[in-house]
Structure formats: C-alpha cells, structure tokens
C-alpha cells in the first residue's frame, strides 16, 4: 500500500517492481544541501514565534507523522495510535520526572525518566502491534482507532496515574549539559536534530533488509510466510520502531507545551497525524514534514483569513481533496508540477 491509490487487484508480484518504477522522482543527495543550510540558519533570522511555534512544532508533528508514514508507507499498516504512543512517552516522562503534580510524579533524574519514558512508550507500541497484527489490513485502522480513543477516555478518567482531566503541567526539558533547552534556538536545534535523525533512520531502514522485508510483507504476506519469514515478528518490530520514533516526537511535544493532558491525545490530534501524513504523502519520508508544515501554517494563520470557527471544515476539505485528487499528497503535486515544468509547457500527450 505504498500509495493509497493502489489497486487492490493488481497482481501482487508486480507490485514491488511497480513501486520501484513509480518511486517519486524527488531530488537526491546534494540537492538537499541548500534545504539543510536553510533549516540550520532559520533561527538566526526568524523570530521566536517562527522558530518555535512554526519551525519546531512542524518538525515535532512531522516526526510523529513520519512514524505513521513508516508503518503505512512501508508496512501497509495504517496505525491511528501513533499520537497515543507519543502521548504515552510524554505522560510517563511527567510521571517519572517532575511536574506540577508532585503527588504523582516520582521526581526521578531525567537521565532515568527520559529513557524510561521512551521504553514504556515503545513497549506500548509493541503491544499495539501485537494486537493489531492479530488481524490484517483495514482491520488495523479500526483496532488502532479503538485503542487511541479508549486510551483518551481512560486518561481522562484516571486520576491515580494520569491525573485525569487536568493532566500534568510545568514539565521542563531536562537541563542536559547545563543548557536551558527551552530557549527557542536551542529547542529548535534539538528538534531539528531529532527530526534529521528520524528522517535518516527511515531512509536507511527503507533500504535495509528489515525495511525491505516489511515492504515485501506489505506486498505479499502469504509468499513471505511460505519463504519462511516470521510475519508477525517483522510487523511487530516495525510497530516498535515506529513507536520509538513517535515517542521521541511525544517527548519534544511535552517539552514544547510544558504540559500534557487528555486533550493532547484526543480524537482530534490523533486524526490530525493521519491528515498530516496523507497531506504530505505516504511515499517518501519527506512527505510527513511537508504535510506538517502545511498543517501548522494553516492552523496558525487560518484565523487571519477565514472565520476560525470553520477551520475543521477547511482542513477536512483539504484532506478530502488530497485523498480524492492527489493520492500522493503535496509531494505528488510537486512531482506533477516538476514534470509539467520539465515538459516545458508542452501539452500533455
């Protein structure tokens, strides 16, 4: 399911080759240098708002959506629980570390609480993977949605661990190496580093044996099983990997907001991650970041253009338009535009 347009009835054997053929002709290698330079230089000329609220926030949402892109694009498993996993990392960082609710928070050193939070979230993602891989296909989306919504309701009701409706506030990033990572520029570079690492990891994984196996499972599970591959094992490993990535994004998100509450992992945010991934495009790891940037810009500036009230209609219609007309998302549009330009305005054949 590299692309959401893919025909169900296409002969399975051809699909891998087709993917290769149809792979997006995005620029490679050194073409990214200017982009990289731009991203590094960005905080030097942009204000606090653009650095954090637009730049860092886009990258955080991008990382979480990237974890979905990895699962959906490579593994064909559309998990709606990625925001839930991200939120779990945030919640457990608050629970193990320090927050406004010191009757619940354990106050452990961030050297301990940070890795533990990542671990708990990754375990949770693994569990979700175990459950979701009990069934296949479109069932995944239902099960993960059910898990996401149930977890949201649960955190809202549970006061012993998750502090219910109010959640946790005053969660600060750890002062690693004596720096205040909440300082806008530093926070931006922290986010940039994590985003770049996750991006590189997904690109690398896409070409690794593991990544290729997962893609092959997407294309023909039965054949892979016959070849002796452990189907569930690989799928669960993919969930765990994606879960770790989402957890990193979730930690950055609580650093940014300084708080976490059920609203952070509500139905809206859960669906937003899917919107971002689909908006950007599921076929290339850069897609989720493009989608996140578009989403964040809309989210912040829609109020200056339209009645804020109808924001959800606008975003929903954008999403529908992409699904209906540009199944490869904004990346697909980019490619179309590039081709059109390359043809030099010659009419379409």
């Amino acid at each position, binding site marked *: 399911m590299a692309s959401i347009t893919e025909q169900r009835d296409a002969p399975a054997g051809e699909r891998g080759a087709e993917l290769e053929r149809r792979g997006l002709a995005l620029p490679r290698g050194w073409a990214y240098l200017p982009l990289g330079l731009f991203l590094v230089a960005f905080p030097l*000329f942009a204000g606090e708002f653009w650095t954090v609220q637009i730049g860092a926030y886009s990258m955080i949402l991008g990382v979480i959506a990237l974890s979905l892109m990895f699962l959906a694009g490579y593994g064909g498993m559309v998990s709606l629980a990625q925001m839930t996993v991200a939120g779990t990392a945030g919640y457990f960082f608050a629970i193990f570390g320090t927050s406004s609710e010191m009757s619940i928070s354990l106050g452990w050193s961030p050297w301990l609480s940070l890795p533990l939070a990542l671990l708990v979230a990754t375990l949770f993602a693994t569990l979700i993977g175990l459950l979701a891989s009990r069934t296949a296909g479109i069932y995944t989306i239902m099960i993960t949605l059910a898990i996401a919504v149930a977890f949201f309701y649960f955190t809202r009701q549970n006061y012993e661990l998750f502090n219910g409706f109010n959640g946790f506030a005053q969660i600060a990033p750890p002062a690693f190496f004596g720096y205040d990572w909440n300082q806008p520029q530093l926070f931006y570079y922290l986010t940039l580093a994590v985003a770049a690492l996750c991006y590189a990891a997904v690109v690398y994984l896409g070409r690794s044996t593991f990544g290729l196996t997962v893609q092959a499972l997407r294309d023909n599970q039965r054949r892979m099983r016959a070849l002796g591959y452990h189907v569930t094992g690989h799928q669960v490993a993919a969930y765990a990997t994606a879960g770790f990535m989402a957890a990193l994004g979730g930690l950055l998100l609580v650093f940014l907001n300084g*708080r976490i509450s059920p609203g952070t992992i509500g139905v*809206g945010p859960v669906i937003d991650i899917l919107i971002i991934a689909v908006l950007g495009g599921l076929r290339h790891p850069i897609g989720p970041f493009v989608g996140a940037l578009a989403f964040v810009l809309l989210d912040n500036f829609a109020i200056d253009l339209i009645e804020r009230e109808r924001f959800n209609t606008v975003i929903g219609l954008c999403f529908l338009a992409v699904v209906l007309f540009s199944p490869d998302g904004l990346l697909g549009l980019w490619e179309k535009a590039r081709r059109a330009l390359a043809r030099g305005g010659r009419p379409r054949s």
Partner: protein
Amino acid sequence: MTMLSRRSLFAAAAAVSLAVGIAPAQAQDTIKLGALATLEGAFAVLGQDGMRGVKLALQQHDYMAGGKKIELIEGSSDASPDSAIRAARKLVEQDNVDILVGPLSGSEGLAVKDYAKEHPGTTFVNGTSAAQDTTLRDPAENFFRFTTDGAQWQAGLGEYAYKEKGYEKVVVVAEDYSFPYTQVLGFMNDFCQLGGKVVDKFWVPIGNKDYSSIVYSIPEDIDAIYVALGGADAVNFLTQYEQAGGAKPMIGGSITVDQTVLGTKGKRRDYLVGTPSAGPIADNWQNEEWQSFVKAYQEAFPDGFPSPSLFAHGYYISTKAVLESLDAVNGDLSNNQAKLREYMASHEFDTPTGKVHLDQNRQAVADIFLTEVAMKEDGTLYNEVVEVIPQVNQTLGMDREAFLAMGPVSRDNPSCP
C-alpha cells in the same frame, strides 16, 4: 537530481524567508489587545459570546483608551490547554499584543497562567476561566482575574440549602472533572460546616448522557440532590431519575438551572419550583446597571443570545477593567507595563454586577447571586434572585492559610459523609 529541483528548493527557501522576515513596525499610538476564546469545537457558541463581551466593552470605549487607539486581534482555541497555549503564543509572539484577555475554560486558564510566567512583558487578563489554582496557588505576577472562580460562584448556596430549605443529607451528581469539583467545594464548604452531610458523590464520566444506572444507586433517605451538570444533561438526569421513581428536590450548580431546565415540560416542572442555585450573574436581576448592560448587549448584537451569558459578562468586565485602567494611566505601558498593573491590582471597578476589586493574588472579589426557581403568573419558570451575596473572596471568607491547608479540590476533597 536536476538543476531545476535545486533552483526550486532555493526559491521555496527564499519565499519562506521573505515571509518570515516581515514583522510590521509597531505604531506608538496603538495598543494591541488580544482576545482569546474558544471559537471552534463544542464550546464555539460560548466563545463567540465571550467575544461579544470584548467587543461591547470596546464599542463603549470607542476603541480608544488612555488616548491611544485599541486594535483588537482575535485568537481561537478548541478548549484544550494545548490549543490555548498555541493561540496565546501566536497572539503574544507573532501579533505582539500588549494585553491578552482570555481564555474561556478552566484548564486553559491554568495553561495560560503558566505561559504568562514566561512572558513578563505582556499583561494577561482572564476571560472566564474559573479554576481555583489559576490564581490561588502559584499565581503569575502578570495574570489578573476580574472574574470569580467556580467555588466563589456557589457562595451562600450551602448555607441557604441547609438553613432555609432544611436539607441536611444530600448526594452529589456531577461530571467528573475539575470544574464540577470546584463547584462542589463551593457548595460543601458552608454546607458541611453547618452540619450538613454529603452522603455520596456520583462522578459521571465526561460526555456520558446515560444516568439511568446511577439513578438507581441514589439512596432513598436523603433530602435533596446537588446536581452540577450542564442544563440539558440535568434534564436528562431528572427525566431518568423520575422514571426510576425518584422524587427528591434538586440543588443546582451555576450552569445547571438554565433555560433548558426551566423550559422543560411535564410534571417535573412542578418540583423544579424552589430549586436553589448560585452564580456570577442572574438574568432576571431587576437592577438598573444590569438591565442597561443587557439592553446594550441586545442592541449591539441582535443575533446574540436573548440575554448575555456569563461568558459575555466575564469577558466584558475583564476588557472593561483593562480599558479603564489604560485610561487611568494614560496608556503608559513602559517599564513592563508597571503602572498599568499597579493600577489594576489596587483599584475598585464598577461592573454590571456590582463592585469588583482584586486580592493579593490578583483575583477578583465580587458579588454572587443566589437564585431560586419560581413560577410566573403565566406558569413559566424563571430564576428569581433571592439574595446578592456581597464581595465574596476566593477563600470564601475563610482565613487564607486555613483555606489553602484544605488542599486542592478532587473527587474526594472536600468530604463530609
């Protein structure tokens, strides 16, 4: 890779940097006022009414204060603290507002207070958020609240229920989150001190509409049920309670006995007569100031509610306090707005609902309205003002230390079974 793609990446980068670089120079003769309310999601209607309050106050001041022009910039949240923070960030960091009025709901207020601490250059004035700890514990120097909190809203209700109505044993039915907890505290504080008993509390999960199993759990040897549910949910609860054969009278929270409840049909309405409740406003208050406020609201917003909600009221008095203070200090915002803040913190303001002044934590001390459902001659029900409880402070008349020692509100705090 082609030259083309490289060029286009550069072009994109250039476009973005252009967009980023533009930060309009701020004119000295304009003061930017940000207003943050829930303009999306299920609370959108309430947020819009809050905005009406802001605009009414600005209109009455001709969008001028302290000799300067006031520019209004709106921000929107969806009632989640995360979205409130994002909207506040945009208003403060991108739109460079000098003063921010908002937000609307309790958990948003707590979030914005935390945010205010990081931005000492901006003055934050609460909209209608009514969580206690926004100002009670760990307040922010630059966060002011001219409205009362959820516990203050219930001032006098416990005493009235115990002494006048003679209710000694009650149960509580309320939604399971911080706002109802705070309301229950406001009620129980008097009620328990006088010797009343709250024998059980039924916390209903948020959004649950099915009370049918809870009504069978309500014991029969009680005098009344304290219900802190939104109006329509209260009707739902009453219907199901009645069908189960229950007939105990009700005591209402601040948002319980609204038009939905009063307009209810059937035999229920008879026993609604006499239901007491309390809150920061009372629609039917026959007071000149209040009536002229209602009239001004109706004239300014023909498409608004029939009468201003407590959200329009809260945002109105908050904005009014800001504008009057700006007048008093001649729009002087120098030195981190020190003069403005000093003035706001120590002066008394007139509002449509009486005098308001702030305490040491910049929290309002204001009048609260105790009401009771009564029947007009034509048979319609309305909330009659029984008593105006004057100048209720945040500690409900208790010593601050003793009040703080009771600890933050929760499902089990306070308790007097």
